[in-house]
C-alpha cells in the first residue's frame, strides 16, 4: 500500500518540507512503497537550477534528485499551481508526473501524510 507524502510549502522557508522528504526516504529505506505530491506553493521544490548556497542551505533540488534512485515511485506535481507560479514543464526537474485533479489524486491513496 503506497503512502503519499504531500508537500504544500515552498522550499527553504522552513524545515518542515525537508523533514517530510526524510519521511519519504525512510519508507524507501524499509522497502515500503512511497510517492510524493507537490501541491500549491510546494511546486517550487521542483524548479530547476536552485542556488541554495546563497541562503546557506543544502539544495532540495539535489536532495530530491535521489528520490527515484531510492525507489520513490512517483513525484506528482499540481499542474494548476505550476500555472499560477509560471512554471512550465521545461522549468521542472525531470521525471515528474502532472496531477490535474488533486482530489482525484488524493483519493487514490489510503495513506496520505501532509508535511507538518
Amino acid at each position: 500500500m503506497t503512502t503519499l507524502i504531500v508537500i504544500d510549502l515552498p522550499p527553504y522557508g522552513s524545515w518542515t518540507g525537508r523533514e517530510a522528504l526524510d519521511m519519504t526516504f525512510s519508507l524507501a529505506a524499509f522497502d515500503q512503497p512511497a510517492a510524493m505530491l507537490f501541491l500549491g506553493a510546494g511546486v517550487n521544490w521542483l524548479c530547476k537550477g536552485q542556488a541554495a548556497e546563497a541562503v546557506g542551505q543544502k539544495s532540495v533540488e539535489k536532495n530530491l534528485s535521489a528520490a527515484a534512485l531510492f525507489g520513490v515511485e512517483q513525484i506528482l506535481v499540481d499542474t494548476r499551481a505550476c500555472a499560477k507560479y509560471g512554471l512550465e514543464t521545461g522549468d521542472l526537474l525531470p521525471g515528474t508526473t502532472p496531477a490535474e485533479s488533486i482530489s482525484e489524486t488524493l483519493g487514490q491513496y489510503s495513506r496520505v501524510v501532509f508535511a507538518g
Partner: protein
Amino acid sequence: MSASNSPVRNNEGFLEDAATWTNEVAQEIAQEDDIELMEKHWEIIYFLRDFYKQHEMSPPSNRLFVKAVREALGDEKGDSIYLMTLFPGTPAKTACRIAGLPRPTNCL
C-alpha cells in the same frame, strides 16, 4: 602522514571538515578498521563522494546505500554481502567515514 598533522576527527572517527579529506587521510582512517584500500574499495569511495556531491547527502541508510551502488555499478557490486566484505561493520557507515563524509544521524 603522521598522527600529529592528521585533520581533526570526531569521537567516531569522522572528519570534522570534509574539505580536509585526501587519499592519504582515507588510507589512515581505513587502517584503523584494518582495511587495506584496494581498487575495489576506491571505486565505492569515489562513488560515495560523487553521490554526496550530486545529492548533497549520503545514502541515509545501509539499505539505500546498497540500492544506490546497485543503480550505479550493477548487481554484483550493489550487493550487501559484497559491500560488507569491503567495509565491515555497517558498510554505509564505515565507507562514509573512510570517504570523508559526515557522520550519519542513525535515523535509519
